[in-house]
């Protein structure tokens, strides 16, 4: 993962932690998934509204570290407007690309938490 050479705790990431995008709930979601990181107890609930095979809205809530919160914030931004079938084939690398920083093995789970919630939401 040498290509992602930015600082983890850079201002961009910390801003997503302080003011996460798409934080909250959807009144009538079409898909809901949740995931927990057993290493630290962090948890996330991801809600989606998929209309005409496209993501019309996405929200998340839960508690997490700066890394998992920023990852969820960036990832939900990425998800919004995507066709449903794209969501079925999201690789781990999509999230690492959004974070743009080298991630140690112990913290991979933080970055990937929102993806694991998405996979549960759409039954992948």
């Amino acid at each position, binding site marked *: 993962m040498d290509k992602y050479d930015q600082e*983890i*705790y850079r*201002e961009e990431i*910390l*801003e997503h*932690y*302080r003011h996460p995008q798409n934080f909250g709930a959807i009144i009538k979601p079409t898909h809901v998934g949740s995931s927990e990181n057993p*290493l*630290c*107890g*962090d948890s996330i609930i991801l809600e989606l509204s998929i209309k005409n095979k496209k993501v019309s809205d996405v929200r998340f809530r839960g*508690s*997490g*570290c*700066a*890394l998992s919160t920023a990852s969820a914030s960036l990832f939900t931004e990425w998800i919004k407007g995507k066709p449903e079938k794209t969501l079925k084939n999201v690789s781990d690398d999509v999230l690492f690309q959004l974070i743009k920083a080298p991630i140690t093995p112990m*913290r991979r789970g*933080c970055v990937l938490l929102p993806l694991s919630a998405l996979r549960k939401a759409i039954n992948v």
Partner: protein
Amino acid sequence: MNKQRQTSNGVKVVSIRRQFPLIRSNPKLAYFDNAATSQKHESVLKAMDRFYRRENAPVHRSVYELAEKATGAYEKVRDQVRVFLNARTREEIIFTAGTTASINLIVQGVSGLLKKGDRILLTDMEHHSMIVPWQAAAIKEGLHLDYVPITAEGRLGIAAFRKLLKRQPKFVGITHASNVLGTVNPIRELIRDAHRAGAIVLVDAAQSAPHIPINVQSLDCDFLVFSGHKIYGPNGVGVLYGKKELLERIPPYIFGGHMIERVTREKTTYAELPAKFEGGTPPTAEVIGLGAALAFLRKIGWKHIRKHENELTNYTLRQLKKVIGLRLLGPASAADRLPIFSFTLAGVHPHDGSALLDKDGIAVRGGHHCTQILHDQYSLSGSMRVSLGIYNTKNEVDRLIIAIKKVQKKIHG
């Protein structure tokens, strides 16, 4: 602040730091994760290296000179551990793979003596290594587990403990000192009360062993366990102390070579203590390394260790209290307290906090520290933990405080 280095304790700590290769070669590192594992003393590494280079042979088997010497070196450490714990006899000292292995051996053995419906009393400040084996045994044997709660100050609820003893538990498993709160339990009184209620008592001394002298005869505990790697010795070796009559009553845990008296096609009779519990080739070099660690502690002496660590405890508590937004878990006073400090910083996730402190060369633990039940009592999923040892200094604590303030500024912007 630098003047503190010039006290006699200060001079000694400089010399002690030089005796730990990892500490010596990382002058910018403040190693504050001693409750998880300590660094290794030079003499430990040398003893293990010398054993493998010059003295390696199977213990307890062969009669050639090299093997006799290896057996002698291994068994000498048993005598050292007997002295370290003031056990009555050397047969009461069993070498295991560590505290977790010791507890599993005891739980397996003792649960065989119990019957369905018997109660086991544990505490909310136990490490998972005490709780999980008993939960597994409880399912298998139909036992009931009770937990002693902790007080708001982070000490064990003594009144609740006595009340729970009225349920007549057959076994009490209790930590000498909490790996999160730093609390040192009034263990002698707890053991006395548990005995009056008719329970067998196991003391988890994994945290206390590097900090407090232990005397198993005076405590009168039935079992006591600790690990080599937390007392400046190697990984992979631990100790189980048990009263002889109990060790004779419980069955072996690991079956195989060395732990037998006679094997025929029909049956096996088991060896006497301590061999009965040491099946298989033991971690010989690790046991010898443990012997070196015990010799090091003896040379430094409890007087110095207690004085140095009490000063550090007092100092660290004073400094941590000054940090705005820091919530300390566990007792705020230094009395009956180890230099272990778990805390949260408002708005800072423990993993972010420890990752950011690491950037300033400060190694602290972030997470639940294998005590999820305890963290649940505080409605927390984790905390940051600073745990100090024989080589830590007030200057390092000062660096920590500055670094914590930096973390707060960085996260909150």
